[in-house]
């Protein structure tokens, strides 16, 4: 039996009313805003009873589960309620899901989407919410029948006497369950008893997505609302001085135009923003506002020197000696070991700045009045937005409500809250509800980019081809990419890792699997080359290193579990029939651990008309318990495609302080014909508490691709994007 404490912090989990979700989407009543997990198999209730912050039960037995965290496509709106439903013990087709509003007291869970943490951090709270609900219903029935609770059992929405005739549905007893106290400890199910967790369940919002229902921030509408578009300076290091306000205000469809300032005191990390002062133009229609943007004549002032890509490349090289050391680790005596090594190999890997490019551009709705504010839109960090908005508006946090719409992609971009603050500043100045929207060009040139990186790896082998020395030094603008305590730390006696940062005025932020995606691509390509130098199979070479880390690890702070790391490699080796060869097919492998999950991938690449084509990808994943197999497979597949796309095609270059790419005609994202023909995903089966999958599927893909491309073309791919960057070797054109 697993017991869980129900009392967190000062307040009991159950003494909180179901504040979440109420009145969230104006213009949507409950019947249209709820999302059936499938077509509800029972009638729509007349009356609902709040059980706790997550659960409402209707008199027909239909259950509403509020999903606490923001939905960016990682499918938590399906998987998180599945965990609640498992412990509550209701049929999934008796459940409807609603997006909860920001209310961390009610949810007892940090409400954010980042770091692949939703399932990991929510695991206890979600199970407790369900188990507490079930316990309350059982107690209500016990009281009703004047029997001891131990004489009752609950399953699939029905409470029954173990040795009797009577039974009652959750819906019939719910009115009496509301408000019942639960004990300080609750019993949770054992994983072997799960009925819902581990099954394949479809996205609860699928039916709305395929019929074009209003779900996203850009779709949000409220009576009396006006639209706003913004203009930020054309280059990093510039500031707006003034603009042709009179001309703009006189244009068709323009109601107002002014400069806003979103500067706050002591900005938190989520307030990263290169452009705190912006021009806002207000009107009723997007097209008219776009015309007004084109008619802007703006005077700018320069506040810091404009940068360009040549400078960035130079600084990444200089950073090797001059960079700020952010983290480092040394084991043994790497210098001495390299000096006596029989073979030494050194390789440098680079990657340019990149944009997030969520398909839905930044936007937010705000209605700020004298004493309160409503903020609704796509945010991965509603709590951070409220905190920042409270500072900006000079308002108590309790007077600011934040509601989350479904997001047209996140990838880290919507961890940053500037667009919510901009909407709030505009609404405050107007005194009216406003939806602020970015054009694609605004979005791609605003900043908050993935940093640019350069890492140099060096390995030394002894005469018997054992790895005796390893070094990595990585520079980033502005933050370095190296994780000193990750693999191969712990597997080699003489080891050094240094993470270095160099300043830039380009604003940067977290981008799906921050730093890990670059480091995995570089390290796992390098390991492939070291294995080749050692004359060893690339999987066997890695497994030998993990064997060392399992039995006799070097150092004590190794940030991975060597057995689980080896486990995904062994699984992918088996599933892909590694070691067999198919004529014309070229294979690469990579494995990486980040965000608490382990993923290994094998890529099969064929050359077709001189072009590489990814024919098949095998993925082996260890994320502990898999909550929803359907969503889990989908997000890993997406990670693979994203890894290929950004490894092959994407880069952001700068001239005179500006990104030279501002839309998809100059910034290349992967397309249908460039995606793998087939992706298969396998999970390591265990009962370890679950970890997330939003990020871990991406990092190995770039390296597995590079390693397969090497087999196909004879060229090692060190510099991103692979399709256009000079690899400094004889190479064939790809892409």
């Amino acid at each position, binding site marked *: 039996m697993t017991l869980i404490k129900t009392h967190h912090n000062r307040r009991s989990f159950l003494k909180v009313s179901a504040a979440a979700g109420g009145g969230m989407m104006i213009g949507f009543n409950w019947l249209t805003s709820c999302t059936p997990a499938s077509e509800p198999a029972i009638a729509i209730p007349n009356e609902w009873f709040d059980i706790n912050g997550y659960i409402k039960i209707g008199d027909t037995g239909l259950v509403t589960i509020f999903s606490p965290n923001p939905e960016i*496509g*990682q*499918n938590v709106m399906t998987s998180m309620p599945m965990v609640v439903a498992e412990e509550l013990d209701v049929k999934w087709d008796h459940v409807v899901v609603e997006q909860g509003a920001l209310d961390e007291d009610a949810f007892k869970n940090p409400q954010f989407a980042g770091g692949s943490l939703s399932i990991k951090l929510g695991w206890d709270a979600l199970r407790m919410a369900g188990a507490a609900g079930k316990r309350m219903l059982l107690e209500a029935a016990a009281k009703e029948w004047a029997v001891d609770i131990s004489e009752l059992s609950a399953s699939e929405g029905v409470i029954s006497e173990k040795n009797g005739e009577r039974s009652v549905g959750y819906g019939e007893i719910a009115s009496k369950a509301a408000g019942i106290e639960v004990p300080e400890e609750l019993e949770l199910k054992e994983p072997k008893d799960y009925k819902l967790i581990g099954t394949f369940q*479809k*996205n609860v*919002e*699928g*039916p709305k*997505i*395929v*019929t*074009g*229902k*209003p*779900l*996203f921030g*850009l*779709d949000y*509408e409220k009576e009396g609302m006006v*639209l706003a578009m913004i203009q930020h300076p054309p280059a990093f290091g510039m500031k707006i001085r003034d603009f042709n306000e009179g001309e703009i205000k006189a244009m*068709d469809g323009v109601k107002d135009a002014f400069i806003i300032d979103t500067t706050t005191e002591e900005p938190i990390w989520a307030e990263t923003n290169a452009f705190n002062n912006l021009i806002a133009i207000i009107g*009723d*229609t*997007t*097209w*008219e506002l*776009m015309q007004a943007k084109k008619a802007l004549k703006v005077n700018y002032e320069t506040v810091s020197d404009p940068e360009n890509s040549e400078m960035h490349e130079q600084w990444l090289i200089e950073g090797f000696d001059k960079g700020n050391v952010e983290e480092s680790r040394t084991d043994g005596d790497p210098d001495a070991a390299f000096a006596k090594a029989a073979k030494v190999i050194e390789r440098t890997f680079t990657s340019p700045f990149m944009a997030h*490019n*969520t*398909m*839905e*551009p930044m936007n937010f709705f705000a209605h700020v009045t004298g004493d309160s504010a409503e903020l609704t839109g796509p945010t991965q960090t509603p709590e951070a937005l409220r905190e920042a908005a409270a500072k900006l508006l000079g308002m108590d946090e309790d007077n600011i409500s934040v509601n989350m719409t*479904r*997001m*047209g*992609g996140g*990838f880290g971009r919507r961890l940053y809250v500037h667009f919510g603050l901009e909407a709030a500043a505009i609404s405050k100045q107007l005194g009216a509800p406003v939806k602020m929207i970015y*054009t*694609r060009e605004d979005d791609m040139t605003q900043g908050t980019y993935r940093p640019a990186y350069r890492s140099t790896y060096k390995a030394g082998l002894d005469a018997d081809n054992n790895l005796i020395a390893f070094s990595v030094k990585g520079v980033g603008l502005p933050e370095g990419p190296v994780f000193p305590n990750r693999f191969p730390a712990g597997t080699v006696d003489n080891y050094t890792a240094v993470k270095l940062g160099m300043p830039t005025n380009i604003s940067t932020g977290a981008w799906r699997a921050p730093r890990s995606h670059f480091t995995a691509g570089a390290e796992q390509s390098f390991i492939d080359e070291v294995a080749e130098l050692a004359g060893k199979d690339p999987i066997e070479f890695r497994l030998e290193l993990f064997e060392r880390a399992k039995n006799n690890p070097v150092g004590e702070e190794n940030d991975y579990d060597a057995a689980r790391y080896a486990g995904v490699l062994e699984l992918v080796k088996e599933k892909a029939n590694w070691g067999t060869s198919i004529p014309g097919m070229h294979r690469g492998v990579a494995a990486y651990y980040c965000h608490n999950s382990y993923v290994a991938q094998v890529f099969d690449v064929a050359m077709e008309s001189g072009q590489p084509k990814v024919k098949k990808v095998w993925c082996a994943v260890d994320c502990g318990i898999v909550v929803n197999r*359907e*969503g889990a497979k*989908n*997000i890993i*597949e*997406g*990670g693979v*495609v*994203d890894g290929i796309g950004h490894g092959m095609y994407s880069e952001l270059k700068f001239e005179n302080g500006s990104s030279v790419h501002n*839309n*998809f*005609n100059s910034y290349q*994202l*992967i*397309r*249908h*014909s460039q*995606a*793998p*023909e087939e*992706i298969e995903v396998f999970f390591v089966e265990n009962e370890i508490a679950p970890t997330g999958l939003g990020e871990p599927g991406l990092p190995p893909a770039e390296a597995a691709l590079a390693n397969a491309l090497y087999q196909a073309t004879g060229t090692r791919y060190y510099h991103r994007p692979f399709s256009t960057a000079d690899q400094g070797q004889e190479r064939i054109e790809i892409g």
Partner: protein
Amino acid sequence: MATFNLQINGKNQQVDVAPDTPMLWVLRDHIKLVGTKYGCGVSMCGACTIHLDGEAVRSCQTTVSAAEGKSITTIEGLSEKGDHPVQKAWLEMDVAQCGYCQAGQIMSAAALLERNPNPSDQEIETAMNGNICRCGTYTRIKQAVKTAAANSQS
């Protein structure tokens, strides 16, 4: 400003807008049909795909004056009950991640199957290459197009 009489999802609609207004914004801002999505505004991402007399077009590059007199279909009008073979196949394959691009993907796929009921892999890739999915659901989309093709023929 001028008045335009439009036929959208089988209904007559009148709007008073500038003649160069793209259908994307007529649909979203004036008709309040927001299933058609804005992604790039330059015809590079396909999120805004609609049907004009049955042909898939990018509504961000289709002016209201060019659309007048033609039959306009949006994702909301593709089927009455959300049961077009392509929509059903999208649900069966559980295609969507964030879902933002999927209306455009579905409209491109539906137009493809209308003119080519049994497309090859390469024909699917060619027809769908203008629709970007940033989440990377391409392999599921291809499966869903094949599923829809198979289900339409059975």
